[in-house]
């Protein structure tokens, strides 16, 4: 597989480490009310779609960027890749 790194262009997937569902970006506030339940969901509940999925890849053998890659898990078509930092900052701005 080739991953279109937003800074470095197409890179071979062997350079990356896979983590999983990009919902891990939305970490709950541990000091907030109801944190126990929120963390249960955060740590254990994941969607596992057959189709388009947003997932986290780490360019470990490269520039150490964490990426949010949008991939079709059925065809392995990659629909886009963004720096996870940008996605996370945008989520903060939206809050």
């Amino acid at each position: 597989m080739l991953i279109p790194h937003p800074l470095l262009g197409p890179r071979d997937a062997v350079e990356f480490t896979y983590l999983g569902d990009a919902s891990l970006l939305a970490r709950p506030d541990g000091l907030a009310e109801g944190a126990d339940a929120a963390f249960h969901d955060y740590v254990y509940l994941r969607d596992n779609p057959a189709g388009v999925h947003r997932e986290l890849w780490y360019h470990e053998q490269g520039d150490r960027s964490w990426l949010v890659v949008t991939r079709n898990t059925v065809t392995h078509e990659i629909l886009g890749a963004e720096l996870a930092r940008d996605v996370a900052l945008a989520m903060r701005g939206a809050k």
Partner: protein
Amino acid sequence: MTRLSGGLIDRSRTLSFTFNGRSYPGHPGDTLVSALLANDVRLVGRSFKYHRPRGVFSAGSEEPNALVTLGSGARAEPNTRATVAELFDGLEARSQNHAGPLGFDLLAVNDLLSPFLAAGFYYKTFMWPKAFWEKLYEPAIRRAAGLGSLSMQPDPDAYDKGFLHCDLLVIGAGPSGLSAALTAARAGAKVILADEDFRLGGRLLAESHTVDDAPATDWIAGVEAELASLPNLRLMRRTTVWGAFDHGIYGAVERVADHLPDPGAGVRQTLWRITARRVVLAAGATERHIPFANNDRPGILLAGAMRAYANRWAACPAQRVAIFTNNDDGHRTALDLLGKGVQVAAVVDTRPDATALGPYRTYPAAQVTNTWGRRGLTAIRVAHEGGSDWVTCDALGVSGGWNPNVHLASHQRGRPVWDAAAQAFLPGACPPGMIVAGAAAGQGSTHAALHSGAKAAQTALADLGIVANLPDLPRAEDTPLNLRPLWHVPGKRRAWVDFQNDVTVNDIALAHRENMRPVEHLKRWTTLGMATDQGKTANVTAIAVMADLTGQSIAATGTTIYRPPYTPVSLAVLGGGDTGAQFRPRRLTPTHPWAQAQGAVFVEVGPWMRAQYFPRPGETHWRQSVDREVLATRAGVGLCDVTTLGKVDVQGADAGVFLDRLYCNPMASLKVGMVRYGLMLREDGHVFDDGTCARLGAEHYVVTTTTAQAGPVFRQMEFARQCLWPDLDVHLISTTDAWAQISVAGPQARALLGRVVDGFDLSNAAFPFMACANLTVCGGLRARLFRISFSGELAYELAVPARYGAALMARLVDLGADLGATPYGTEALGVLRIEKGHAAGNELNGQTTAQMLGLGRMVSAKKDAIGTVMSRREGLVSDTRILVGLLPVDAAGPVVAGSHLFAEGAVQQTDTDQGWVTSACYSPHVGSSIGLGFLADGAARMGEVIVAANPLQRQNVRLRVVSPHFIDPDGGRLRD
């Protein structure tokens, strides 16, 4: 049998090879099979299940029968298809899967037992009694049913892997592949042309027809010369493209030295990973057969293969042959054989309107209904309009049409599509960027192949913005097959569909009766297509037979899924040379050369090689060295390279806040110039890693990790920085390799360090326990000093730039001679930390919590660090297991890590299990073995005697529960 005339073999040279120990001659250009046929050897193997005598069936990589073991000794390679084994001088081959000689196989008794070995017999016959399956039935079946055996010796050959990139990958160098490659290469595109054969030309080499009124080889030679002159084309012979992967990546194996008598020191095979922007698949087609009763005798083969042997290799399996066909292609074989002087006994044609195309007898509207000949064909039974005849012949060529090689086109879930006009499955949805040309796309005539290849290349390059002109292509035959489908000859006797796995039409009928009708069920119930040839000559025929039985169309019946590899790929080449020392990168510590000079024994620690202990003259057992190193450290001063522990530099205005969120204990409050022990949790609340966190400046921390977790911790830190808290001003860099770090431990540590520091005050008041500082040593060398202790002694860790590590170690040993300075390795390091009761990898195995380590109070509830919330869940909090020390009641008794702990007298089972021993060693300080372990309610059980059960060795050892701190429990030595 003597050779026929002509052929693409070099008769000026004779090669000698052996088959089953007997020597035969051959020529350059021969394959093992063509040479065997030229020497009248027809029986080449035994079938998988019934041990029926088998001869060669095809002339290519689709071969189901002629599997042999090539080579001998460590180089013996089983299950090689003899049809594609290029002959060389000294080649050794042996047949497989028989008990006794090939001609009289004792296991042929299986053939008599065939009623019990029909489809699904695995699931039916051997089910009772259940326990017999594993011990009796399966081993016996595996011995009898099988292929060749491995040499059981290490592979002596070298393998390699490489990466290639191109605009256009052309797979197959037959007429369509050659014209595609020529079109693209002339346009200046970067082209790779790969073919599994050792000679370019594909099917053209097997035919007698002309191209531009000259032998096809003339045209091929011209194209080959032009391609060789173009620097933008890479020609890869003996290279099988075996898999189409995601995003235009193709797997290929180049057989670099398999055809050489002596592979020498070079690479035997290379695994190529080809990234292609566009692909033309010109993989050709595979002929199919027509099953009839007893169609598996040696001498019965594909008609196209028979023609290939005659035309390309000047070999024929017999003097007198017959042909069974449902199309005009079968007649071509008859004509070519006649032209070579072979006697054609009859052409049995299923078509009512069939007429002879030459001077041979043709039976129209006829079928072959049985055959005769125990170890080789002697006669066929022909049923025709006027009755039935026995026709004597020594070989029979069978032609049922051609199946396009759609495999690579289907590796990305694309299902082939049935084409009624072509009576064949054609490629369906191809992998992105692939165009199929030639016979693989159903364009089987030479004319059609040439033109579709050129056109495909032009279209593919146009996609890339490269303009390619169609070349002037030569005149070539363009005759239709005129095929009239017949999928099998009906009858009660066994008619083989899949030769390699011994699947017959009756087996398919049985699967149908047992409702295993979908093709995927059919495949698994009968094992159809599951042999090493993956049913290349069987699957489509089987699908048609099943369609016939169900009354469904072939289109509706469909195919099974095609998966890589196209042909078998050895595990050795997939490893690509990454074996032994090359399996993964090996990391050496800065003091490695110094330690080697000291005669250290090394041990693998993750990717690192670390000194395990330093034997001295007279020491005959590792324990002697380790005990000495431990005692010397506790009595004087010990030196150990601890560079392998991960080091991460953390800088920025928010560094403290950031570390507060990574460690469960507070770090922002750490004073500049001080170090704190830190515990990281995973978000699920379990311990992830431990280490130290040193604050060198207001915005500068250095954290250490365990050796094993250095990579994962850094990954987690980057995840936290980029994904969780991107708004913090913090930057990270791994400095593990930049700093050599040496532990200086023992009561004389301060005295020794005093001899290297440049006027730095090491006094307890100026540099107390858990202090850290930047300083210089040895007259100006920049360094970092940390007063931390893993051993429980007065101890420091001194870091200098990595390139000075070995020199610093040598100087410390030298300067400390009078203080008893002693280098120690990882074994002594382990003993020292177990004696002190420090947790390490054995305790931090991913299943333990801070509370279990006795560090539950470190988890701060005042801040939101990774894992804090989940560490409070009831299941973890209610776990009473806690780290304890363990001493054998009988001082000579062993303590074995991994043993499980039980109350004395308790029944030993899962629900009475109270914990386990995590670490154990012999402690020279205590004078007996000691251990650490997690024990239920351990804190309240000091002094109690429990049992450590080690059922693997039938051991029950009585242990006393003690404090995990075997030395200096109040920490006086650390602070001295």
